[in-house]
């Protein structure tokens, strides 16, 4: 796979890949010498890749989660489910294209899938509002959650958002109220909820669909109380200090496991999910199925009790 580099730290890798690819084009059946040269470059590439991705800074990790080729919500729906029927609208105001939901089958089992969707090209990005939902998006999600509960269908949430949209319409229609209600209602939905953070998990915009029995995160995804840029703008008074803010906020999958906010990290191919979306999706599917299987053995009352206990206990403080 040859790409133009998107991230600065990818550049040496992409350059080396290009060199190998050029040599391969040239060498078809030509010389054994060239073949061995290629083999050695490939080894070098593997070493370099390992080296770069084993010591990403938190900010590089955030950048990787925003890679333009990274699989988005609908890519996963395509790769891990069948029979997806998208359901639109909040029955109140509008259909929010930044939030997608519908019924689908995973391994022949009906589920409700919900998540934020980003766009690939400019037109799609605008239509999806960069994955930033309005109140009608959160209300659509809640409407579908209730449908799932009514028909006893488990819920799968795929989170990928730079935040709930901060705009005039969003405030007029009660962004805070919509998110607050979702959080409260999700805490008591009488069906299993499996949450996977697949890209960006920014703030209330993520939590507004993010309360679950099992919360997992992809290796290079992130989850935080505020985006690194937002935090930098407030505390450092300079959005360019985002790398410092990302470090301070501890936003990576590794951090989240240590803070006991997520239950499991789903590993990604070296270089990130976009390097091998199929392999990533296979793992995501496997982990979702495993989580569902375990949750479905629990009586509902137990499930609700455990969910409440889980959120009740998060936080670190001292009692003097």
């Amino acid at each position, binding site marked *: 796979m040859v790409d133009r580099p998107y991230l600065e730290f990818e550049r040496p890798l992409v350059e080396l890949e290009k060199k190998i690819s050029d040599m391969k084009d040239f060498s078809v059946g030509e010389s054994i010498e060239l073949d061995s040269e290629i083999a050695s470059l490939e080894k070098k590439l593997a070493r370099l890749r390992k080296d770069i991705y084993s010591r990403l800074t938190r900010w590089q990790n955030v950048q990787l989660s925003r890679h333009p080729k990274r699989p988005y919500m609908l890519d996963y729906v395509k790769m891990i489910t069948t029979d997806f029927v998208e359901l639109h609208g909040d029955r109140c105001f509008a259909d929010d294209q930044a939030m997608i939901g519908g019924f689908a089958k995973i391994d022949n089992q009906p589920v409700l899938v919900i998540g934020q969707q980003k766009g690939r090209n400019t037109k799609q990005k605008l239509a999806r509002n960069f994955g930033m939902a309005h109140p009608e998006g959160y209300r659509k999600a809640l409407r579908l959650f209730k449908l799932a509960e009514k028909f006893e269908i488990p819920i799968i949430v795929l989170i990928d958002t730079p935040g*709930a*949209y*901060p*705009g*005039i319409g*969003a*405030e*007029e*229609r*009660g*962004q*805070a*109220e919509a*998110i*607050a*209600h979702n*959080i*409260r*209602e999700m*805490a*008591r939905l009488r069906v299993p909820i499996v949450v996977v953070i697949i890209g960006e998990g920014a*703030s*209330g915009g993520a*939590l*507004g669909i993010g*309360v679950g029995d099992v919360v997992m995160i992809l290796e290079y995804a992130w*989850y*935080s*109380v*505020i985006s690194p840029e*937002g*935090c930098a703008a*407030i*505390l*450092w008074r300079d959005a360019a200090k985002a790398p*410092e*803010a990302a470090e*301070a*906020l*501890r*936003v990576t999958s590794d*951090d*989240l496991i240590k*803070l006991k*906010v997520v239950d499991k990290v789903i590993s990604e191919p070296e270089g990130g999910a976009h390097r091998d979306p199929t392999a990533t999706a296979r793992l995501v599917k496997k982990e979702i199925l495993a989580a569902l299987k375990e949750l479905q053995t629990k009586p509902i009352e137990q499930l609700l009790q455990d*969910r*409440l206990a889980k*959120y*009740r206990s*998060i*936080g*670190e*403080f*001292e*009692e*003097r």
Partner: protein
Amino acid sequence: MEWFKKAKSGIESKEKKNIPEGLWTKCTSCGEIVYSKKMEQLLWVCPNCNFHFRIPSRKYIELILDDGRLDVYDVNLVSKDPLKFKDSKKYPDRIKTAQQKSGALEGVTAGLAAIDGIRVSFAIMDFSFIGGSMGSVVGEKIGRAIERAIENRVPLLIVSSSGGARMQEGILSLMQMAKTSALLAVLAEKRIPYISILTNPTTAGVMASYASLGDVIIAEPKALLGFAGPRVIQQTIGQDLPEGFQSSEFFLEKGFLDKIVERKDLRNTIIKLLRMMWRKSVET
């Protein structure tokens, strides 16, 4: 448990900062100059423009609760520094400064009280404590206040003022939204009333959790209320915000508030509501 009044003098001297000092007070909203003694009588509401000055938690306790009395719980909860967070200042130093300024260990005061003889679980946020931000301790104290309402089967009152989740505790602060909202779901199942009172300002993580989840939501006039801060919205959309945007009046007009209530009428309004909403005959 201790009597709130015992700690009163200590808090009083340190909380002055929110109220303008001196013989004469200039309204920060309209510029009107008012005799400070009169301002005190008016509960720190400008007689000219009705702007409600920020007042310390203790003043609300005196204003709303019977005999100004609150049996305080959980005073010994103290924040830790789980992220070892540092921006221009280390987080523990920020906390220390806030503690010295406010005379309290954290930004919420909570306990049991009575209003016109009705027992209630009461909690109030202190904006002067790191901008009323919600970290693990604030979330825990609000959470315990909700649980006290459930255990004692008494109505819940929360007076909010907050800039949102506390960044210095990162994702753990975000999770306090889930903690408090999940417990409120249980309270709602028990059919125990919750009145949420919003004061200037209540935004972001607190607005997007318990502040928005009252059975009845009331706000003081002209408070700043919303999800995103005005500056963030302005930067995002690249244009000026309309006059009165994100005020209590705006919230009422858009349908997200039950009522705007002036400070002097808070207690009576709450009593009226509770007398009708809270009858012991209501059982789950």
